[in-house]
């Protein structure tokens, strides 16, 4: 009896009745996934007629090189023709096509080459051999066994790597395992240049404060991160890439600063022959020492030579951090060099 009631309940359910009279497949069954390789698309004009597509095709009747009939102006174009009833959509023809731009396009090309990841990823994972301590934690963490030991060195096998980033998380040494961005290298360069120039300009503008600074004191300052970040975004509009490139650049940056206190200078000219680039010279007409900032290497030799403390030498370090208001700021710390004191 109870089973009968259960049956009536099942059949009387509204969804069942709806499904019975108005059944529909979901629309998405007709959608092809993003990475679906459809039949290759031929762009006739790019073909160089090398025949590598026909050689690579696993299906005998799928692809043929044909040639248009010649006319008075020019010889006929050579181009491949795909026979859809034999093509297996493997995309080999598009991968081997050597013409630039490619004659055959077939979805996303995977490029069966070592230097490209099989899985499209912004990052390429590499081991910095200099910093790596060979703890092999990344080898255990890697789920596809892409990290191999060759000649006592850890190497990421790019053809196996799936770019999951687990090695980066487990690595105990900062910087030993690196996920570098492989695209937009020119833009990344521009961003780094922009950062270095902005920070250098800022720190040069604080020279007056620095001259007053005692030898064992630290000069601390903060600079807002947002303007640099926004300006970088105009170069490359990808927040993830820009933030990481900026963070790397700022945290590694060390700027050496030379200050020149012209009032104390006794014009002894001892610094002039010591300068390796000839940046310092004596202007006999005006009776002053002239320093060419463009030529200066900031090697600190003049600072170590000067007996009157005219030249001072500082080292500025930067660190990207968040302040109390959860804003990102660049902490700047400048320290006077103590080389001269040590020498004495």
């Amino acid at each position, binding site marked *: 009896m109870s089973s009968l009631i259960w049956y009536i309940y099942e059949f009387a359910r509204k969804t069942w009745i709806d499904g019975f009279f108005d059944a529909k497949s979901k629309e998405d*069954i007709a959608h092809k996934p993003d990475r679906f390789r459809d039949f290759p698309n031929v762009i006739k004009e790019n073909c160089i007629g090398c025949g590598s597509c026909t050689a690579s095709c696993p299906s005998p009747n799928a692809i043929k090189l044909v040639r248009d009939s010649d006319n008075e102006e020019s010889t006929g174009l050579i181009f491949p023709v795909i026979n859809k009833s034999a093509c297996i959509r493997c995309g080999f023809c598009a991968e081997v096509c050597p013409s630039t731009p490619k004659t055959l396009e077939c979805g996303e090309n995977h490029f069966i080459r070592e230097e490209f990841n099989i899985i499209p990823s912004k990052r390429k994972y590499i081991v910095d051999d200099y910093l790596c301590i060979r703890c092999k934690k990344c080898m255990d963490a890697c789920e596809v066994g892409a990290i191999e030991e060759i000649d006592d060195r850890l190497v990421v096998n790019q053809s196996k790597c799936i770019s999951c980033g687990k090695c980066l998380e487990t690595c105990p040494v900062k910087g030993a395992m690196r996920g570098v961005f492989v695209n937009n290298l020119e833009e990344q360069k521009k961003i780094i240049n922009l950062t270095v120039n902005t920070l250098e300009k800022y720190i040069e503008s604080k020279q007056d404060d620095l001259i007053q600074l005692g030898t064992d004191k630290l000069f601390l300052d903060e600079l807002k991160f947002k303007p640099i970040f926004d300006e970088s975004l105009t170069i490359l509009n990808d927040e993830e890439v820009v933030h990481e490139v900026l963070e790397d650049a700022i945290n590694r940056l060390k700027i050496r600063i030379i200050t020149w206190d012209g009032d104390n200078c006794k014009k002894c000219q001892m610094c002039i022959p010591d300068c390796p680039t000839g940046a310092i010279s004596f202007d006999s007409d005006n009776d002053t020492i002239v320093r060419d900032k463009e030529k200066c290497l900031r090697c600190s030799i003049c600072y170590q030579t000067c007996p009157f403390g005219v030249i001072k030498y500082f080292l500025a370090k930067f660190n990207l951090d968040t302040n109390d208001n959860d804003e990102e700021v660049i902490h700047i710390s400048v320290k006077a060099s103590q080389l001269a004191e040590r020498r004495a």
Partner: protein
Amino acid sequence: MLKKLKDIVRKSSIHVCIVNCGGCNGCDVELVALLSPRYDLEQYGIYVHNNPREADVLLVTGAVTEQWRDNLRRIYAKTPEPKIVVAVGNCPQSGDVFAQEGGRVLAPVSDFIPVDAAIPGCPPRPSEILEAVLTVAPGALAAKGRAQDARKD
């Protein structure tokens, strides 16, 4: 009146027989996927049999092998009129990767039995198969049925 009724019946209930005449089973797997709830073949009035005597549509997969040369004709003869043949995938059309030099496949299928529709792909997507069967089969079946009735009269 009777003719219209016959048309409706022929259009709304399509019985299909899968004939694998020597392929890799890739297309058969895609056909089986059509029976799953995601595609749900039967909601369109398509029923899958493995008996050609009950079928209206023969779905032929695979490059024809030596053993299938006569059997294919026999299966086609057993299917009651009106009937249509749909070649699923590349093998029945061109032999695909099996049509190598020195190979022993007898593709295309159209050398043995008349083919009404062909679906390219290796294998074709289930949605492509469904689309092709639904666009070709009801119309062709109804038209062939009418022609057959006319011949009888």
